[in-house]
């Protein structure tokens, strides 16, 4: 799904150009080349225990301040100069609340990345650094001083754009970092002033509700999850005889079965969401995506002809595991620990649940109504066939990595899902009324026939 597995979005490289590039990207792709000297991007992931920092430092600028000829073979800079680079960075990055008792700066990883921004002109290499700022005991991560002058101590016009990518306690969990300021030489004094990070006071409650909202967003945009569960529920109200879906099994039967399936799915994805968020398992995203598409296909076929009648809960549980792994992808780059993580998983999961219940509440009653008419079998089979086509489209898309007609059309169509649900509602009511009338007519005819005879 487009929105479900977003790769962490890169920050724009060019100060001021941020809005311009957005504008260009939207309206005139390809005509925006730029060559203002590139700045550093600093992305902060703030939680209660530490501040995780990602730096994106352009090599042409770093070469000037690191004073070594690193531009010659940029691909191998980390291998060649790793330790010296670490020393250099540590000498120019300090964080503290009390200057005499600075925080630990722990460099987690460094790697080279080729700048791939088509819009900003020719690609250039950048050094990506992941580091953690670890406060002293009982010190707050929300308000501290960042004394940072990497590159800028030497390159007078260089600037560093500081953005908060994740701020758990404020419910900011986003792929679009929020710019909080610029570290650069103060033009009046020509010095680099220590930069104060001062985030709005947050709370665990805000973090929790932020995760809840994110969970809801995920289901709203992750149409494949919904399609899976709805398709699985589609024939749940029907009885099976002779290995065929037959007639409506009554209200009690329906509700019981619906609840069983939903609960199994929920338990399944909750377990793997937790496991995934803890980072205990790492399964390639593409593989998970493909299995999810397969799960949709399987439930569509089951809706046409019962494959695993009576064992739906195991299927729901099994595929729930897979869907949960997909949900957990989102939580992984929040760098959350202990209590935050527990609250996050809970909030996120509840958000997913709330949205799921809302969508099920909006669709399933119509299935129950329709399943009481004799047209339901046709409706069910047509719907399931369409879903299976969509699923195959998605499988192909996810295997090949390219969109195709079916997957593109599905993605577009699903943008209109609220209208589709409304249509479903009207359609089911029409069917129901039609069925009642026919039934009455038949009964009336029978009465007349009886009277006459």
């Amino acid at each position, binding site marked *: 799904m487009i929105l479900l597995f977003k790769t962490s979005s890169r920050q724009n490289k060019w*100060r001021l150009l941020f809005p311009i590039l957005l504008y260009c990207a939207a309206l005139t792709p390809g005509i925006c080349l730029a060559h203002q000297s590139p700045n550093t991007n600093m992305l902060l992931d703030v939680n209660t225990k530490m501040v995780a920092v990602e730096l994106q430092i352009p090599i042409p600028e770093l070469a000037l301040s690191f004073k070594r000829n690193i531009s010659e073979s940029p691909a191998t800079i980390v291998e060649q100069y790793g330790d010296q680079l670490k020393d250099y960075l540590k000498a120019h990055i300090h964080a503290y609340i009390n200057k005499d008792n600075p925080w630990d700066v722990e460099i987690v990883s460094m790697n080279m990345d080729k700048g791939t921004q088509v819009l900003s002109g020719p690609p250039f290499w950048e050094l990506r650094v992941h580091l953690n700022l670890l406060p002293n005991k009982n010190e707050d991560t929300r308000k501290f001083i960042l004394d940072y002058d990497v590159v800028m101590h030497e390159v007078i016009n260089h600037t560093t754009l500081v953005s908060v990518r994740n701020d758990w306690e404020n419910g900011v969990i986003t792929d679009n970092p929020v710019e909080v300021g610029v570290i650069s030489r103060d*033009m*009046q004094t020509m010095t680099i002033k220590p930069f104060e990070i001062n985030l709005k006071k947050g709370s665990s409650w805000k973090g929790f509700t932020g995760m809840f909202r994110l969970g809801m967003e995920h289901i709203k945009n992750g149409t494949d999850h919904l399609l899976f569960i709805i398709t699985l529920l589609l024939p749940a109200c029907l009885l099976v005889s002779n290995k065929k879906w037959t007639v409506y099994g009554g209200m009690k039967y329906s509700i019981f079965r619906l609840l069983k399936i939903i609960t199994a799915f929920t338990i399944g994805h909750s377990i793997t969401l937790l496991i995934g968020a803890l980072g205990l398992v790492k399964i390639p995203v593409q593989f998970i995506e493909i299995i999810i598409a397969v799960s949709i296909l399987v439930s569509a076929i089951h809706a046409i002809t019962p494959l695993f009648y009576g064992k739906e809960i195991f299927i729901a549980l099994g595929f729930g595991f897979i869907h949960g792994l997909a949900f957990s992808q989102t939580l992984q780059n929040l760098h959350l620990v202990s209590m935050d993580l527990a609250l996050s998983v809970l909030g996120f999961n509840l958000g997913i649940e709330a949205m799921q219940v809302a969508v099920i509440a909006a669709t399933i009653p119509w299935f129950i109504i329709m399943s009481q008419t004799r047209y339901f079998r046709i409706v069910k089979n047509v719907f399931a066939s369409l879903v299976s086509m969509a699923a195959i489209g998605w499988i192909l898309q996810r295997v090949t990595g390219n969109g195709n007609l079916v997957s593109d059309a599905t993605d577009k169509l699903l943008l209109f899902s609220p209208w589709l649900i409304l249509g479903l509602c009207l359609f089911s009511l029409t069917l129901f009324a039609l069925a009642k009338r026919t039934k009455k007519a038949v009964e009336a005819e029978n009465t007349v026939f009886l009277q006459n005879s």
Partner: protein
Amino acid sequence: MKRKIVLCITSAVVMTAIFIACKKDSSSSTTSATVTALTCSSATISATATLNVAYTGTASIPYTGGNSVAYSAGSAISSTGVTGLTATLAAGTLSSSGSLTYNITGTPTSSGTASFAITFGGQSCSFTVTVNATATDCSSSTGVAKVVCLANAFLATLSTTQQASVVLTLNLANAKLWSNLPCGLSCRDGLAFSSLTTAQLTAAKAVIAAATSTTTDQGYDEFLKINNTDSVLYAAAGGGYGPGYYVICFLGTPSTTGKWMLQFGGHHYAGNITFDAGSVVSITPSHQGLEPKTWTNANGTVIAPLADEETAMANMLASFSSTELTSAKISGSYSDCLMIPGSTTNTFPSTKVGIQVSSLSSTAQANVLLAMARWVNDLDSTSAAAFMTIYTNELSSTYVSYASNSSGVSGSASSFFTTNTDYVRIDGPSIWIEFICQTGVVYPSQIHYHSVFRDHSRDYIGL
């Protein structure tokens, strides 16, 4: 049961395959184009025509009720009323509603209204193009009056829509909208050269020419050469480079009594000239850059409009004694100018660095003035002289500083400005000039130039 499942899957796969395979085609159609309404009264004409002046333009005629059919180009329809113009339908494809485009060309033989009776898709109507009397003659005016006259003459060639895009409010936000980057209109205001007809572009350039110097490699000639150099970058790198992305814009209505600003520029050029009550009150911010820094055009002419700027700065530094050079040198490196839009907050450093001009030898002092003149003299000679007087009077409190230039030695002009980050700054009570060598973007093996010319007290004057 198993057979059923297999059947199910197979049919789903086959159907999906068919859908994917049928992605294209279904285009051959013989239906003719029809529309239910043509609205000539809402026609948009790209530009006003002028008597006896060759005209090219387009007319967009809105329609509704189109039947989604493609139509081919039409044959020329001659104008009535004012004759001499023809309108030709351009090929296209109908949507449910949209506009037909007619290309209009020819030379109008009288002034007034040229009418075109058109018939399309079962509907007919008639649209008109206004033909002005002979274009305004500004040759008798001089100075700011001439700039204003030419600005009005340019405006007269534009459609009302174009006029609305080119005359904007004079405020700080609009005034600050200039850039060194090849970002066309997305980082600038006004009209792009590429959107203008030949006659309109000529009229636009006449305004710029009147406001700038007539000397070779200065003023207007320098602007044209930088503009042209972008076509070299376009040929080498494509994308957003090219003379057509340059723009012209008026902030405020051009007049000899009120206050207004002429903005023109594009990649590697920004001109911002403010007029108030008939005189030039600000000639900054101004920016010039050049890549490649020298090239030869098809006629064999060497194009290097910033060579004299580089020479003037190099001569200036070379005329410093070794001791003076040591005092002028500042620490740190520069990868670009400081006062370029976007790289600063537009705040000038409050402390001047380097060497004070009053402490230099008289030869060196004269060379500082010569270097300044290379930027100031880009303006029309009258305003240039007025501004040179201001800057000359402030010369003794002006500072010169430079960074990098590690090969630079006293007495050798050619030893300066040879590699990336070689940088110089002239910073006076008013004047601010920076000039820098940067690694090329399209030609990374060469250096290229960036420069800015600002004024501490006159940038965005009064805004």
